[in-house]
């Protein structure tokens, strides 16, 4: 997630997916989708393309936000 800030400085907007916001907050990234899944399951579930796609698109949706840092919750 630290890398996100570095990419932002390179002019590339980025968003991360977090299953552990208690840690993510410490790094203060520009955009985060908080996903309520266990550690090791940031995109939801194995072999569940629909859920993976939904989480990915929800995260990417934060890229056009003006007010940073931007966070959103995803509940499966």
């Amino acid at each position, binding site marked *: 997630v630290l890398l996100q800030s570095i990419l932002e400085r390179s002019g590339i907007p980025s*968003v991360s997916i977090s299953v552990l916001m208690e840690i993510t907050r410490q790094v203060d990234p520009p955009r985060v989708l908080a996903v309520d899944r266990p*550690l090791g399951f940031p995109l939801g579930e*194995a072999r569940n393309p629909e859920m993976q796609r939904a989480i990915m698109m929800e995260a990417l949706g934060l890229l056009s936000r003006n007010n940073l840092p931007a966070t959103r919750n995803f509940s499966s």
Partner: protein
Amino acid sequence: LNRSRYRDIGAGVTIRANVAKLSDLRLKHRAFIAAYPFHKVEWRPGTRLTIPLSQARVALVTTAGLYLPGQAPFRHSIRHDDCSYREIPANTAVATLRIGQSSDAFDHAGIEADRNLAFPLDRLREAVADGAIGSVAPHHFSIMGSIIATGALIDDSGPKIGRKMQDDGVDAALLVPV
């Protein structure tokens, strides 16, 4: 730690049994995190995606330490941080990727069964195929998580990845820490 910036995460959070919480972690991992020297890199004022997603070229970054069978494995341990990165070409078959992240802080069963959980390249391709996203970047990137001495990531690997994304015409990046 400035929690106020994250106020909008508070009230709306639905607490469920399967939500990852620090308190779920074993003592050794909690101790690691308690002692972890969290680094911040100033990113403000920040940038934003100014074109529609349907026109954007998107790159992925995973911290699962994924690497191609032909690439050197990551050499990471509690005593030695591996801040290197691996480039993963867009045409890679996701199932062939090896998993370098060996931390037992999380359940590996998911990414063992489906690498897309930490590296959703198949999902990205599908989204491009049906027009939701503009294009798949020619290269994606894999690093190790749980790096303690982050200097080489901040000074070397991170900026290199940024430059490669610029060279590839990447408009936006999705990072997936595990």
